[in-house]
């Protein structure tokens, strides 16, 4: 009887393993499995060719097509693209949630779009496909990996680490007289700052007026101490990284905002304070204005997207090529411990539409394009804007050649400490409330305290409007996944 039971169990176990193996698509690599999965899908349909459509961020119009052609050659699946500016895409995706046109198979946007897309039902979970295709995420830093999921389900793939970075002017740091004077004043060697306060000290020291003798170097133009986003649609992103370095969560377990506490007020105060070392025009600048300004040698430091380093190196008219020092983002001292947090303000991602005719075919492209091999190729692409984020990429010579060793080391550190921007439904509304109030504070129209109080009040209203219970559930899943490390306040 016992023998029979054991034998039965063994038979069942073998059968289960067999079924599982049958479900896994064959192939030695992530990309091979994706290609084989796509081919098998076409075979199942009984066709040799298939057309899909991707709603694509126009920024990738130059870089993406070559990969689409390659995919078509490998599988027979042609992916047409319809391009929009990244600011237009969220509305287009949400319109598709209502119209259910089926016009798009893949949505390409940014990580923070995911909660709204999922809640509207316009994208599908990818767990079942992933169980068969076995994509490889293990090397992706945990918090970035968390952004691929919503409420515990996998919805999106990405191949772009946009975690923020701080860049300094090495040529100015290396001025012997400046080094000595800085050390005499602040008691330490100038270099990558540990804290936000130290960055401000650097900014206060490394600036001057045109024609001035700056520690043995005549300034050919005004030199500003710092650049960090202060314009509408941008400033709030950087605030979230800074706030997270105070090791505080943005909400407690009841979704009561915690941003109007001392940590939030201090974060805003620090940002307001640093603004005095920036060009006055900063209030109207996005990336297209900030990047050239830094590359043309007008400022000492900039906190921005990681692509600034490559841009400063190669951009037309750059005067800082070879003179940029990449830094891990500064942090805050919390109970005597240094906490650094970069923020993921964008991060190009890919989602599968619920209303497309061939979600499986769309999935296989996602797995192929974001896999470790093809994904790395995309990151190293001179035409692309996909930034490094996988630790293994420091060993990829193509990527190292594009970005440089020092940058790679630093950006990987930033990837390890990256946190998401409020990964909840309605996040654009939360962002906007924060954005507008920060703007008021930056312009000196209200105090940092008032800015945070107002934002907290508006955030409460937004939570109430969306549904507190729903938001509590989503926030719980974010916190429990460790997306904000060990931040306090839950």
């Amino acid at each position, binding site marked *: 009887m016992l023998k029979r039971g054991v034998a039965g169990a063994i038979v069942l176990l073998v059968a289960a393993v067999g079924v599982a193996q049958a479900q896994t698509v064959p192939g030695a690599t992530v990309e091979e499995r994706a290609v084989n999965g796509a081919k098998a899908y076409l075979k199942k349909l009984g066709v040799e060719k298939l057309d899909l459509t991707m709603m694509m961020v126009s920024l990738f119009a130059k870089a993406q097509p070559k990969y689409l052609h390659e995919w078509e050659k490998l599988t027979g699946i042609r992916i047409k693209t319809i391009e929009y500016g990244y600011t237009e895409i*969220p*509305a287009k995706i*949400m*319109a598709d*949630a*209502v119209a*259910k046109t089926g016009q798009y198979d893949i949505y390409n946007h940014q990580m923070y779009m995911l909660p*709204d897309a999922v*809640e*509207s*039902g316009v994208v599908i979970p990818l767990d079942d496909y992933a169980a068969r295709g076995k994509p490889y995420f293990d090397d992706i830093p945990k918090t970035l990996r968390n952004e691929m999921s919503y409420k515990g389900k996998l919805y999106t793939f990405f191949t772009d680490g946009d975690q923020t970075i701080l860049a300094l002017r090495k040529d100015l740091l290396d001025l012997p007289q400046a080094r000595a004077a800085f050390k005499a004043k602040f008691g330490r060697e100038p270099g990558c700052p540990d804290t936000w306060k130290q960055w401000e000290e650097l900014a206060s020291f490394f600036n001057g007026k045109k024609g001035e003798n700056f520690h043995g170097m005549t300034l050919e133009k005004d030199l500003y101490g710092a650049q960090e986003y202060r*314009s*509408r*649609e941008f400033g709030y992103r950087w605030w979230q990284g800074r706030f997270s370095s105070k090791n505080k969560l943005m909400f407690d377990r009841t979704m009561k905002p915690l941003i109007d506490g001392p940590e939030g007020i201090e974060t805003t105060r620090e940002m307001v304070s640093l603004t005095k070392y920036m060009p*006055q*025009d*900063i*209030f*109207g*600048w996005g990336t297209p204005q900030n990047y050239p300004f830094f590359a043309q040698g007008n400022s000492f430091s900039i906190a921005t997207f990681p692509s600034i380093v490559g841009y400063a190196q190669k951009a037309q008219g750059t005067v800082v090529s070879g003179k940029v020092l990449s830094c891990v983002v500064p942090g805050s001292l919390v109970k005597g411990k240094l906490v650094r947090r970069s923020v993921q303000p964008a991060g190009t991602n890919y989602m599968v539409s619920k209303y497309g005719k061939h979600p499986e075919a769309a999935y296989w492209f996602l797995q192929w394009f974001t896999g470790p091999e093809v994904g790395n190729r995309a990151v190293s692409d001179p035409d692309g804007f996909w930034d490094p984020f996988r630790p293994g990429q420091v060993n990829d010579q193509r990527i190292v050649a594009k970005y440089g060793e020092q940058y790679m080391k630093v950006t990987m550190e930033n990837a390890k400490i990256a946190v998401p921007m409020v990964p909840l*439904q*309605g996040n*654009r*509304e939360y962002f*906007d409330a924060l954005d*507008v109030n920060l*703007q*008021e504070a930056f*312009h000196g*129209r209200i105090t940092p305290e008032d800015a945070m109080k107002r934002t907290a009040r508006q955030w409460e209203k937004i939570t109430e*409007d*969306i549904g507190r219970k729903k938001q509590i559930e989503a926030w719980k899943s974010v916190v429990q996944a460790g997306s904000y490390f060990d931040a306090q306040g839950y």
Partner: protein
Amino acid sequence: MPFLLTIYISLLRWRLTLGFWTAAPWGGFTNFADALTDEGFLYAVLRTFVFAACAVAFELLIGFGLALLTYRESRGRRFYLTVFLIPMMIIPVVVGYDFSMLLVDTGPLNSVLSVLTGQDVRIRWMSDYRAAQVAVVIADIWQWTPLTFLIFVSGLSALPPEPIKAARVMGATRWQVFRHVQLPLLKPVIVIAVVIRAMEALKIFDMPMLLTQGGPGNATETLSIFLWRNAWGFNKISYAAAASLLVLALFSGVIFLSIWLLKRERAQLEEVRA
């Protein structure tokens, strides 16, 4: 039908994240109450009316002035008319981008002002609260003054010559002719110009969006931008529908007032003619 649907949707609590509107819960008048207590909405209303008042006032004055200078037959009149009308023909998006280049802090406008004043003028046209609001008004004036100019040129050209001749024969000065004859006769034309421009100015979207995206802060966030942001940025379709209905009620008041003024002017004109 679309209007009835808007009313119905405004009574729901529909966010796009709920999917189709049939899935939305009933909200009654909560959206209206929310809008009426929403600082963002109320300020957007105020901002839009202030913007419209400033822009339309300048457009009327400049348009009227130019019309007075050019309505008579003279050499080069056709050329003037053509040149003055060009801005109106340009697509607003293009005008927005043109102005965004002109108004860059180190751009042509500040350079011209620097030359004129002999000082280094660095007005932050797109990143300072007040300056950004002025910039939007300036751009609107540049684009839409031609319309008021066209209306006034047509009006002035169509004035009956007899009362003017009679006044001159009786020894009236140019100013007196203008003040007591031409201006009263032109009143209906002025009201038409005000109504047309005010209605358009109250709906402005493209210029502030292209120049400042409604910023800095929400300094240039007009009603149209506010509604667009809420509907397509925050997915709050029901709320945007309710707010837009409130706006409609408000604008309707302005329209009815304008029509009443126009009718009153016509009646007075008929009396004069009789």
